[in-house]
């Protein structure tokens, strides 16, 4: 039976970020990836690096997000240097556009809450009117229904697929072992460590990290953790490639480096179903065209659906089992935004057991009461 210091269960975006960190610190690390039958949130992602109102009602989540977006420029350069992959980071601010007074009211009250819960008084998102938004948009015209927008100078976007590729490449560069088509069936605490049984073989390790997306619900209880997560479907439309028109990311509209316009931001509770539907894609397209009428001229070339991984309070989980120390779990629906801190914290947290102080707010015992 092959033995490793660390086994990561999950090859999505959180697993390889943590594995990159542990492998770089010199720990022998195996990453087990279920395969294409898995519901891969990491491969359906929109690609926002988003601060805005992340952590509404949970300042630790906001602080953790802030740390990651602050780290992102250096993180992006580090990936480029380490594995030669440019993740197309554009972090020149982001907009959330409001198409009705109700939306504007909701966003304004979110900003007020965020500003008042902020501990350092440095909360920087602000509500702007359409005229101010037009100035930021550099000539791209907003539709008449737009009543305002929330501007956050810290937000931005990346190519989530290039990020995923870069994290995997970094993990393997430092000796991490990637194994595809490996469904983790059982995690058996044994002696000082764990035995991990997949569909085909068994491994042993000193530490195990469950970063299995929606799979965490069945794996976490085996190491004494209770982490309820739910799938939430999002659908995305992709346009033909066009000349650059969007100078910055909008919460549901972004232009990739290659020129495609992505449109998204739907939320549906439909269980384990990642299909697309006419009704939702129509609404996404209508909203995009109401925001920027010129988008109505575009040809669409692709749509897809994917499942977000949500906890009941939508806040992340970073936890180590108290019953079986050495067993860790991490989940959040911000795998892209938090990638920089996930890489950064991995060695201290997983190898040394030194969790960042903020993780006190991210333990899973909050779901047990």
């Amino acid at each position, binding site marked *: 039976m092959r033995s490793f210091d660390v086994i990561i269960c999950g090859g999505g975006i959180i697993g390889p970020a943590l594995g990159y960190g542990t492998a770089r610190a010199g720990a022998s690390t195996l990453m087990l990836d279920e395969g294409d039958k898995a519901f891969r949130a990491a491969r359906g992602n929109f690609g926002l690096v988003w601060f805005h109102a992340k952590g509404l009602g949970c300042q630790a989540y906001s602080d953790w997000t802030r740390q990651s977006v602050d780290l992102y420029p250096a993180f992006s350069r580090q990936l480029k240097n380490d594995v030669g992959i440019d993740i197309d980071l554009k972090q020149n601010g982001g907009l959330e556009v409001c198409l009705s007074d109700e939306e504007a009211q909701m966003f304004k009250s979110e900003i007020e809450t965020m500003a008042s819960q902020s501990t350092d008084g440095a909360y920087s998102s602000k509500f702007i009117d359409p005229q101010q938004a037009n100035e930021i948009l550099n*000539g*791209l*015209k907003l539709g008449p229904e737009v009543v305002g927008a929330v501007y956050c100078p810290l937000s931005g976007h990346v190519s989530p697929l290039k990020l995923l590729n870069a994290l995997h490449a970094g993990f393997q560069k430092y000796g991490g072992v990637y194994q595809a088509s490996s469904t983790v069936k059982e995690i058996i605490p044994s002696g000082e460590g764990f035995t991990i049984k997949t569909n085909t073989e068994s491994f042993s390790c000193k530490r195990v990290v469950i970063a299995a997306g929606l799979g965490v619900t069945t794996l976490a209880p085996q190491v004494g953790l209770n982490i309820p997560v739910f799938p939430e479907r999002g659908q995305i439309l992709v346009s*033909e*490639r*066009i*000349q650059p*028109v969007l100078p910055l990311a909008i919460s549901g509209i972004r232009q990739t480096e*290659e*020129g495609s316009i992505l449109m998204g931001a739907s939320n549906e509770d439909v269980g384990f179903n990642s299909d697309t539907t006419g009704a939702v894609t129509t609404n996404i397209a209508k909203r995009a065209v109401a925001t*920027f009428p*010129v988008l109505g*001229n*575009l*040809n669409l070339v692709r749509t897809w659906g994917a499942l977000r991984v949500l906890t009941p309070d939508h806040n992340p989980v970073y936890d180590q089992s108290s019953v079986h120390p050495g067993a860790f779990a991490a989940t959040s629906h911000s795998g892209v935004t938090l990638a920089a801190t996930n890489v950064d914290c991995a060695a201290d947290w997983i190898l040394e057991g030194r969790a960042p102080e903020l993780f006190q707010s991210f333990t899973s015992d909050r779901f047990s009461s």
Partner: protein
Amino acid sequence: MKTLHAPNPVTAVTLTIEGKSISVDQGTSVAAAALVSGLIITRTTPVDGSRRAPYCLMGVCYECLMTIDGVANQRACQTIVREGMVVLRQDGKREVMS
């Protein structure tokens, strides 16, 4: 490339491809008309600008994208010629005016 026979003068369709007027039989695809007109490179790609020509001629490879009557990124092999049609090469990314 050339057609196997001259177009029927009664039913032929005349269109303009990259500024060149050409008559072809009705029912001909724009991709075939472009090839007959002598235009082999029908687009350049949006990311690295490399040259592309009609390839599969059955709608699946998307190599023959052209601007047809002002609408960019149309599959020329899936579009049938019409009288007076104006066809241009698709050069890189489409421009969208705002």
